Structure formats: C-alpha cells, structure tokens
C-alpha cells in the first residue's frame, strides 16, 4: 500500500518556483555568500594554524596563543560563522522571495 508522507504529497505542477532571472540573481548572491564563508573556513582551518609556531610564545591566561587558536579560537569562529551564515542566507531567500511558505 502506498504510504504518502504527511504534508508532502505533490502540490501543483513541478514547474520552477521562480522565474529565470530571479533564480539566476539569487544563485549569484548565494554563491557569493558560499565563497565568503568558504574563505572564512579556510582561514580558520588552515591559515591561522600555519602561524602557530610564531604566535605560540604569546601567553594569555597561561594559554600559548597558537595552542589556544587550535583548541578554541577557530572553533568559536566556526560556530559563530555558521549562525551568521544561516541568518544571512535567510535574508537572501527573503530578498528574492524564494523562502519556503
């Protein structure tokens, strides 16, 4: 027997939800955000730690700075960065009117 997912049955035609120009502009902006966050990711994952030996002699509350960045600093950047990304992407969705109803 076919089990239909509640609330997920086909609604209307499967045609594109927005027109082509809006879709293209939306994707451009979304890609831009993707590259921004990707750059942030690359910076926090690799670039900072390449300098770990150089900044490790700076001690804050006992933490050598290089050690601290790998143990906590980058993690904070990841978490804050992701919440920021989710918010920013929602704004873009709403700007182009492509958010879910």
């Amino acid at each position, binding site marked *: *027997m*076919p*089990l*239909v*997912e*509640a609330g*997920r*049955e*086909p*609604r209307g035609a*499967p045609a*594109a*939800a*927005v027109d082509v120009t809006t*879709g293209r502009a*939306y*994707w451009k902006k*979304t890609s831009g955000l*993707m590259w921004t*966050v*990707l750059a*942030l*990711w690359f910076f*926090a*994952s*690799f670039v900072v*730690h*390449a300098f*770990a*030996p150089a900044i*490790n002699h700076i*001690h*804050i*509350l*006992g*933490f*050598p700075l*290089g*050690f601290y960045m*790998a*143990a*906590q600093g*980058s*993690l*904070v950047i*990841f*978490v804050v*960065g*992701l*919440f920021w*990304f*989710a918010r920013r*992407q*929602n704004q873009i*969705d709403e700007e182009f*009117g*492509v*958010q*879910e*109803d």
Partner: protein
Amino acid sequence: MSASTQGAKDPFIASLGKIYAGYTGGFAVFVVLLAILEQMGVPDRIIGYLFVFLTIGVYAYIGIISRTAAVAEYYVAGRRVPALYNGMATGSDWMSAASFIGMAGSLYALGYGGLAFILGWTGGYMLVAILLAPYLRKFGQYTVPDFLGARYGGNVARLIGVVVLLTASFVYVVAQIVGVGIITQRFLDVSFTVAVFLGLAGILVCSMLGGMRAVTWTQVAQYIILIIAYLIPAILMSAKISGVPVPQLMYGFALERIEGLENTFRAAGMTPPPGVTGFHTTPFADARGNFSWPVAVNFFALVFCLMLGTAALPHILMRYFTTPSVREARQSVAWSLFFIFLLYFTAPAYAAFAKVEIYQNIIGQPIAALPEWIKNWQIISPYGTPWVNIVDANGDGILQWGEFRIHPDVVVLATPEIAGMPYVIAGLVAAGGLAAALSTADGLLLALANALSHDVYYKMIDRHAPTQRRLVISRVLLLVVAVLAAWTAGNMGADILFLVAWAFSIAAAGLFAALVMGVWYKKTTNIAAALGMAVGYVVTFGYLLHTEFFGLDFIQLFGSKDAILAAARQAAAIATAPEELKAEAAALIANAATLKDGALSFIGNAIMPTDSVVLRGRVVGRLWGINNISGAIFGVPISFLVIYLVSKITPAPSQAMQDFIDDIRIPRGSVRLVDRQEAVE
C-alpha cells in the same frame, strides 16, 4: 516559522521541551541518588551496573515507544524534527566513542598534534552547511546514494555510492563497538568479547524497532547524558586544580604547569613513554621538540581529511533529511556544531587536567605505593597489554616518566578515579561514553541497513517490493551487519581514533567531490561522477590497505633502495611480526648490495622520498611522508579533477536534469523528486 507553526499543530513536537527537561531532571535525581547510595556503602560494582543498565533501559524504552511501520517515519523520522533537536541528535550521532573516549586521550598523548582532531571534526560542519545540507534536504530523498542515483542517472552511481558508504560506515561502526566493549568490560567485569556482544544488544533495541524516528529521539536523550557526563568531571577537576569551576578558561594554567613539569622531567634525564609527546603545547614538534615539516604537513592533511569526511559521511548527511524545511536544515547544522562545540572545547581541558594529575601525583612515586585505581585498570586490553601498564624499566621501584603507560582510549574513563573523585562520577562517565558509542553506532547501522535495503534491494533488485517487506529486510540486514561488526571488533580491536579517521578518509575521497559537484556544477555528467567516485575511492582505500597491511611491499614499489633497506630493518625488528614478513625482510637485508630502487620511486622523489614508520606493530609505508589516516589528501583532489575533466569531454546533462538542479538550489516549493511517485510511495 515552520518550527512554531508545525509545533503548534503537533502536540508531540510542542511538548518536546517539557519531555526532555523532565528527562534531564530525572537523570540528575538518579545521579544524586546513586551518590547517596555510594556514601551509604553500596559497592562500586553495583553502582556501575545501575548506570549501565538503567541508561540502556531508558534508550530501549524510547526505542520501543517510538517504533514505527511507516516508511517516511522509518527513513526520515517523518521530516518533522525541529532544528534544535535535530542539532542535538546530530551531536550525539556525530560524537562517538572516538570523541568521547578517544579524543581527550589522544590530546593527552599527542599534545598540540591531537588538536587536528578538534579542528577537523568541527570545521567540516561549515562545509556541510554551505555546500550540501540545504540542497540535499530540498532534494528530499531518503538516503545519500538516493541522491547520487537520481542526480547521476541510475544504478552505477548509486552502487558506487553504496560501496563507499558500506566501507566507511562499517569501519566506523567497528570502532564504536570497540568503545562499547572497553566500557562494558571495565564496568560489568566481563571479557572483551562478551562485552562487545552485550553492548550490541543495547544498540539494536533502538534502531531495529523504530528506524530513524526511534534513533532520533533516543539520540537527543543520549546527547543530554553524554554532555553532562563529560562536563561534570572536567568542572570538578578544574575546581580542584585551579579553584575555578570553568575548565575551558582555566586549563591555560594547567598547560603552563605541564610545560614546567616536562622541563623538570627532562632535566632529570627522563624520557616520555612511547607514543606520548614530551612537548605538550609545541606545534609541529618532533621527538626533540624542534619544528618538523612532516609533522606539520601531516597535521594539516589530517585536518583536511577529517573536515571533508565530515561533509561526506552519509549517517550525518541523512540527519538533515529529517528537518521540516530547508531553512531549518541550515539552522540545524549551526545547532549541531554548537552542541558538538560544547564537548570539543572541553576536551583539551580534560586532557590537560588529567596530565597534571598524573605528572604531579603519580610520576616519581614508589611503584609499591601506587593508588588503588591503577590496579582497576590493569586489566588486559585487546592489544595484549594492560590498559594502564606500569613498566619498571630501570628496576629502581620508582615510577619514571616513561614507565607509566596508559592507553589513550582509557584516559577519559579513568580520569575520575585518577583525580580521586567519588565512584559515582566514574559511573557517570561510563554512562556518557556508552551513550556516545551507542548513539553513533545506531546512526551508522541505520545508514548501512538503509543503503542495503532501500538502495540495493528496493531500487536495484525488486522495484515492486511491498513496504512491509522492505522494512523487514531492513531490520534483518541491520542485525546481520551489527553481528558482523561485533565479530570484527571482538577479533581485531584497534585504536578507536585511528579506525575512525580511516572512515573519514574513505568517505571524503569517495563521496565528497561527487556530492558537491552534483549541486554546484550543473554540467557534471553521469560518467564523470561515477568515474570520479570510483577513482577517489580506489586511490584512497588502496593507499590505506597497501601502506598499512603490506607496508614492505609498498616501499618496494615506491621507495628508493635505502628506504627499502630501512623498512626491512624495521620489519625484522618487530617482535610480533608474522614469520613470512620476517623472512621477506631478512632476504632483503641479506641482498642489500643488489637492491634496486622501486619501480615507482620517482613519484615519491618528486616531492619527498617515500619512507616507512613502525605503527600498531606493523611497518607502515608513507608516500610523501603522509600517514595513511590522511589518505584522502590524495583521493579528493584526484576525484575532483577526474569529475571536472571527464565532464568537459562527455555530453552535458539533459535540460531536464539541469532544470532539476536549478530547482534544488531554491528553497521554495515542495521537495523535488526526480521520480516523485517513487519517493512518496
């Protein structure tokens, strides 16, 4: 928006907050009760039993009340899990025995080097959020191979996806079962093999009955237990050592003390035990504490592989199929990372405090007068040595730095006892470790069984199989895979962290490029993706197997004659090596004068000569100095390159497929299914 509106409609979702608050309160009362019982003189063993059996009982109860026979409930929990709770469930799905039991232990052993795991296992979520999760959610199928099959036109891509998934998840689930085995062995006092099968029963109760729905709500419960169990001992240790109960802030001082003690030990002419760094906070240090290029390269290679593996592991990606909307899928990734972060930024503190305790209070003591807890952990591990191994190498009766050998996988479990906390805390930590291992094993087994039942059986063998039969088959397969994994774990236990890192490299090399290109590069063709996945998988998995199990052979192919001779000497010196390997090594050494460079040695020489190291009782080969746990560093770029180049020379995908990709890029509209009828069936 969708959370509140859907929540208002659904009384169960609306009352989740109350349910889990009550549950957390109940757990706190339970811990306090056990603490009182301990004070009244109830033996430690009973406390251990109560912790293990009662928590497993609760998970089983949740599994039983959320049992289901509906396909959408079984595969994607009805797609109504709010972002916050899906974040918690992903957190415990994610944090396995490797995170809970293994990671702080590795940080204890490796110091800065261990931070590669901390970075690698958090940063990958950025890739999940920006590159994959929202689009896979919009696509709206049940499994990751489903996506590959639909995007890349059929069963070839689907099958390769299934093969990668099976390999990675199986290696991963074996590691979890080893973790369950360690805990059960210690706290229930049974042999390792029996312990493994006991733990298995706990895993199966949840996933068998209710599929994704049961696993989701159990995982939320398991997250709550594991995070409490991880934070409390860290807080107590911080209060004890630094006077301030905020471990994440205060362990800087513990680090300073470790540096001081390391210098004192060195000044006294002592060396650290094998596998433990003598320079805890120094980045990229070799054994003498000097900067080393290979160490630095391996650090970054490992970070890279773990991050890309995060974004390719099917049991994680499929969690984002369960949210009510694309928007919530994105939000949910952020919550997942937040909940994971809570444990990960505590782990280095845990390791530092444990190290201070041991360096300050244990090293330098007379061996005859060592505290009681050491005896508890002198039980034999599956590697043939005791978990905590006291070796009086110089026979002076005093414990030197290098004579206290603790296996990294028991550092977390033993720390409460090391720090002299009440036994109830040790029991709590065991319950937390069990929750972590069980929750991940559940998610993995489900991913494995779903791939076999949904993708192989239903999509490839019998398209007309009735729902009931598909679910029965899924459950039977779950049982088969679980028993197989337990058998493997019981027979060849290996370091948890190492096994898990393998799983990440395999998943990253096989799936990451095809998944990302499928969404972000419209012109990716079917053949290109199938080839890319296959090549990435073969290169990386081949590298892992070849270097690990046939290291000497690998060196003879890729190494110079000096490297071959060095590897042969290493092999000959391993006491536990099999006879054939020793004979081969002896023959090589005897014919040293006539040795020739390996046929492919130019590949190694192009960057850094191929060499070998002795690890895990084997001669392990390394191309360009890359350890095999970072094998995806080869597979991922090759996979991307193959997909891109082959896409250029094969005919572009059909217009319908390109429109379909346009459609999954936009949140609006209902879930997009290539074959709509099929997926809602």
